[in-house]
């Protein structure tokens, strides 16, 4: 054999052996149990997984060898979809696949979120998150981009796993996104369409809310945006569905839910009151201009008219409860009663005492037959009696807390006896 031929043969052997050695070296790269972390997957991802569908793929099935011992390199891939396929091919449970992918995607996006927030550098304990202050134009824009990124992440997870596990977990915990909540009554095929419209108009609302100061013009603009949204939704929803949406998502419904806290309306009562208020939405709108007497008068008149309609609808007894539930004094009492876990009905009982006591005081003050001394004594007696009754109803602790917050009306029934300061009264009780 010619030396030239021998050299060629040995060189071919060199190359073949080098290829085999390289393969062994790669799969034996780090010893078992080595805790050194390979290049962060998230870092790799940020370079390579920006477009999962276009990145190069590495398939599990190749034809070079008969068998190979398994290492993680055999399933890892630059493309998430291949990574999932590879994990499935070794019977990795779906739940574990989700855990791996969600953690990886989270890290990938966490880097981008940090970049957006502008805190990707070293930790500075004295720096807050001023860059995200949505009252500033820059902060608002950043928040907008954050929302877009959040959507992108969710879409990627849905594409890869069929669901967004973060959202699923939230749902399981009971924290349903209010956008989904408002659309929960719709058939599945309409949900996404309605959601897209909702989100489109949400952006316009956010722009109005951004400044943190809503004036009358903004309020009008908000109502207009909602009307436009409803007009667009009317193209995909039936009139009945639209009405149901209004009951869940409109500003009127939201305000009514707040106002009726403590009233415990039935579904039907809520629908009826909503209808009446909705019909007069423009007139009932609150005016932020303290000098706009005309608007204030219009609101007052509309309020009285709507109240009459509600009274006719609910009946006298329920109407009285309806009015009570909107009284700030009652709301405070109800909250305190709940906080102290007082028996149901305590808040109503104390609230009624207030009305009775104040009526009594009015009578005494208007009674021209009384001397000043007799009047003072009578007022003092009402106050003492009321304090006693409230203490019995709420307990000593309840009374102590109530008098410092909300229960000031009792002190107004009669002057505090001379020689006793309010501070002293509080301290001694």
């Amino acid at each position: 054999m010619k030396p030239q031929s021998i050299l060629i043969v040995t060189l071919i052997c060199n190359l073949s052996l080098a290829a085999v050695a390289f393969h062994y070296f790669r799969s034996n790269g780090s010893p078992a149990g080595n805790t050194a972390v390979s290049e962060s997957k998230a870092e790799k991802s940020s370079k390579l997984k920006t477009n999962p569908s276009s990145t190069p793929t590495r398939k599990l099935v190749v034809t070079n060898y008969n068998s190979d011992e398994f290492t993680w390199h055999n399933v890892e891939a630059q493309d998430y979809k291949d990574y999932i396929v590879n994990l499935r091919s070794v019977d990795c449970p779906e739940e574990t696949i989700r855990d791996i992918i969600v953690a990886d995607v989270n890290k990938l996006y966490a880097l981008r979120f940090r970049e957006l927030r502008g805190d990707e550098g070293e930790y500075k304990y004295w720096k807050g998150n001023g860059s995200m202050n949505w009252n500033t134009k820059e902060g608002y824009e950043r928040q907008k981009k954050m929302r877009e990124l959040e959507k992108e992440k969710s879409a990627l997870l849905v594409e890869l796993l069929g669901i967004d596990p973060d959202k699923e977990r939230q749902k399981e915990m009971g924290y349903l996104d209010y956008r989904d909540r408002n659309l929960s009554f719709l058939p599945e095929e309409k949900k996404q369409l309605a959601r897209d419209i909702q989100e489109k108009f949400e952006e316009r609302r956010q722009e109005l809310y951004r400044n943190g100061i809503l004036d009358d013009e903004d309020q009008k603009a908000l109502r207009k945006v909602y009307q436009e949204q409803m007009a667009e939704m009317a193209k995909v929803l039936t009139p009945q569905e639209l009405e149901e949406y209004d009951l869940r998502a409109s500003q009127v419904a939201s305000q009514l839910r707040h106002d009726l806290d403590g009233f415990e309306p039935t579904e039907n009562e809520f629908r009826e009151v909503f209808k009446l208020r909705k019909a007069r939405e423009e007139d009932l709108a609150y005016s932020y201009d303290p000098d706009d007497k005309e608007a204030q008068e219009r609101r007052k008149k509309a309020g009285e008219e709507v109240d009459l309609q509600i009274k006719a609808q609910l009946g006298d007894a329920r109407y009285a409860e309806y009015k009570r539930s909107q009284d700030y004094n009652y709301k405070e009492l109800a909250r305190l009663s709940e906080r102290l876990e007082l028996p149901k009905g305590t808040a109503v009982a104390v609230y009624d005492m207030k009305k009775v006591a104040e009526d009594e005081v009015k009578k005494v003050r208007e009674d021209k037959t009384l001397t000043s001394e007799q009047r003072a004594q009578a007022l003092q007696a009402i106050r003492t009696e009321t304090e006693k009754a409230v203490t019995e109803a709420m307990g000593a602790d309840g009374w102590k807390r109530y008098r410092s917050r909300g229960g000031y009306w009792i002190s107004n029934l009669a002057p505090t006896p001379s020689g006793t300061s309010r501070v002293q009264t509080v301290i001694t009780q």
Partner: protein
Amino acid sequence: MKKLILISVLLNLGLVGAIAYFSVARKTQSAEVSAENSSRGAKLEKGSRSGKKEIVMVNAKGEKFSWRDVESEDYKKYIANLRVIQCPEETVRDIIIADVNKFYASRLKPLRKPVEDFKFWKNENNWGGGRRENDEYYKVQMETEKEKRELLKELLGADYEKEIAKQYGWSDQSQDPFNEKLPQETKDKLSEIQRKFGEQQSEIYRKAKGYHDEYVQADLKKIEKERRAEMAKVLSPEDLFEWDLRNSQTAQNMKWNELQGFDTSEEEFRAIFKAKLAAEDARTDGATDKAAREELMKTQKESQDALKATLGEDRYKEYQLAQNWEYKELARIAERQGVPKESAIQVYEMKADVEKAARAINADKTLTPEVRKEKLLAIKQATEQEVTSSLGERGYKAWKRNAWWLRNIIPPEPSKPSQ
């Protein structure tokens, strides 16, 4: 030529040696897996597809590799097995953290009320939930959280939290020189104190059910005092200051709330925090006697003077403005109207001048009520014009919503006595 042939032959021999070495090393590693796992997995499949040979991933016993070869009921074994197949440490942590989280979540699940459909006529569902957890839930939650942390620490080491921080994009505080210098033992003690008092704090908030009166505030303050006292046993006064600077509620409030828009330097942040701490320490709750109040005012003034000296006159003024609610609103109006920040400052400062002038008019006994009212009205109108020219018509309207002080400079008409 001969030399080249010789080099090539030697290279071949070297490569054969390297292959032999890697082959032996791999068998040694895999033997550890097989020792821990019972023989599981499907039978070996070789070259089965359309005449082509396929790569078949096998375990150490030559059986087709399956995830069951690494999975184990025992977390420690599971981790060891994952490491044997060279699963990156980061992925090992991701898998274990998610699994442990799910395990503990499953213990809490039965204690939570099932999710109900949204009932639009009920206010409790207004923000998508209402309270679905009872007291027992919170008790078990606290216990399981503690157990979970201990388990994860045991399995993955003390810095497993870094992995969680990475997922959520939280800043890595461990790189802070102060945190770096603290011994691990001290860090553990501090974490324990934080958790203990954090739980107590949560309990107060939970019981308050959103009703935060002065009694709740007093309970919270008491807890805070106790927390600091326990911290002082673990840290030197200097380190306690450093720790508070990073983690206390006062510092957090400064960072995320009060100083928004002030853009503090590190030095300024430290100076402001110092002044606040001095004022807080001097405050004695419930002190009603004159001497205690005077002492408090004196201490507060001293700390403010010291702060002014550190920040300088201009920055001190900006600092005060940044915390002022009225100014903040004015700044927002100015931004919206597209007028410079200076206009907001100008309007803000107008208030003190106007009130001073109004006081002088009210104090002037030579004026008749009519003339007094006329003069006050003139001041009010001039102020309104000034604000309109500074902030624009819409800005003025937004500003006057909360400008009660201006409306109040004119005394109200005396009401008619009731009949």
